[in-house]
Structures are given as C-alpha cells and as structure tokens.
C-alpha cells in the first residue's frame, strides 16, 4: 500500500496531477448542476409572482 502511494518516487507529480484533475472535473459538474437548479428556482419564483398579480 505504502509502495502504491510512493509511486516509485514520483508521488508528488502523479498525485498532484490526479488530484487537480479530480478537483476541476468535480467542480465543473457541481457548477453546472447548480446553474440548472438556480434557473429552475428563478423561473418558479417568477411564475408564483405572476400568479399572485393576476
């Protein structure tokens, strides 16, 4: 196990690469789904407002 994390002495380069990639790719998914949810919430707020004013 320790050998696996050691990566033959290249641990810093290998794990920084994989860590950075995981962080960025996960962040992009979170950002995209939040934008989608925000949009749905915004539209439903507007629809409620319109209903009240009718």
């Amino acid at each position, binding site marked *: 196990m320790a050998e696996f994390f050691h*990566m033959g*002495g290249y641990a810093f*380069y290998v794990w920084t690469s994989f860590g*950075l990639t995981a962080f960025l790719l996960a962040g*992009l998914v979170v950002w*995209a789904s939040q*934008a989608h949810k925000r949009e749905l919430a915004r*539209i*439903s707020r*507007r629809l409620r407002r319109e209903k009240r004013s009718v």
Partner: protein
Amino acid sequence: MNIFTKWFHRLGSPPWFYRVSGKLIPWMSLLCAALIIYGLYAGLVVAPPDYQQGDSFRIIYIHVPAALLSMFIYVVMAVAGGISLIWRMKMADVVLISSAPIGAVFTVIALATGSLWGKPMWGTWWTWDARLTSELLLLFLYLGIIALHNAVEDRQSAARAVSVLALVGVVNIPIIHYSVVWWNTLHQGATIMRLDGPAIDESMRWPLFAMIAAFYLYYFIVLMLRARGEVLNRESRSRWVRELVAGD
C-alpha cells in the same frame, strides 16, 4: 423529410433536447463512473511501471485524454459555430457557449499535467516549443470566446461573434496535432493515433482507452447539464418551460 433532416430538426428543438438529455444523463453517468473506476484501477494498480519513465508514466491516463478532449471540444464548437452562422439554429449556439468552459478546463488539465510530467522527465516545467505553445494558445482561444460572449450584450450579436472566433481559431487544432511532426520538440510523437497502430503495450493501453472513453462521456454529460440550464434561461417565457416548472 428523410430521417437525417428529421433528427436535425429535433436536435434543434429545446423541449425535445431537455426531455431526452434528462433521461440520458443518469445512464451515461453510470457508464462514465464504471469506466473511470476500471481505468484508474487498471492504470494505477495493475499496469506495470514504464521501463524508462517508471511510475511517472501513469500521468498519461489523464494527460492524453484531457489533451484529446481539449481539441475535440474546440472542433465541436467550431462546427456548432458554423451551424449557428448558416442556419441560425438556437441549439448550436447553446452547444457552443456551454462547451467553452469545459474545453477550457480540459486545456488547463492538459497543460498542468503535462507540466507535472515534464518536470521529472524533461527536467523543466515549461518550454516554449510548438506543442506546448499551441496548446497554450488554445487556452487563450477558449478564454477569448468566453470573454467575448460575456462582453456582447445582444444575444444574437454575441452568438455571431463567438461563432466567427470559434471558426477562425480552429486552424490551431491541426497545428497542435502535427506540431510534434513539423517542429523539433521535447514532446514525444503520437502514441495512439499512428498509421501503424498504437505504440503502447496492452496492459497500459486498455486503461488508457477506458479513460479516453470516460472523458468523452464526461464532456457530453456536463455539456448536457450546462445546456439544460442555458436552455431554461433562454426559453423561460415559453409554454413548455412554464408547464415543466409548474408541473414540478
């Protein structure tokens, strides 16, 4: 109407896209996760260290897929830009602008992991050679498209401007691909896209193919996620969106 034009018209229809993408995303995510688990396990644990590069070669499992996607996404954007200019298709514009941040992230990953791989293997984080410089230019093209889209207030003018920029910038793609052939460079030549077949052992090749497939799936999943938000924003006053939100 033949099947192709029918399909093309449907693809251009936001409510159809919204419905179908909502069904596709969970299945594609499942497949993508399975490919990543296999690719990481086979690439990081099972595959032996490289005879020259030791364990540092394992960076290939994200560097190569990210670099491939950084170019593929730009080509998709250029094609979408062409369609948007010629046919004024709404969805083409959505695809173009939703793809830009994804492409930019893949370009950053390709550059960063290349740097992290270059330091132990070449002895330098960065060098101004053809491959690295043209990939950096690609990042600026992505950022330029995002900035241009944000800068132009009118939606139609913004769509036209980014379409033109995406089309003009596409000349950079063959330059990136052939840079290792046309110029003297530290970067190694093609490993996979070679006429005489891939120059990589099977134990290392299959996890790489799995990671490439996973990254392609990831792009389409996030593109659909982003496009769904974008479509809702643009169509928020249309009846299908009202019905969708009211029905929730």
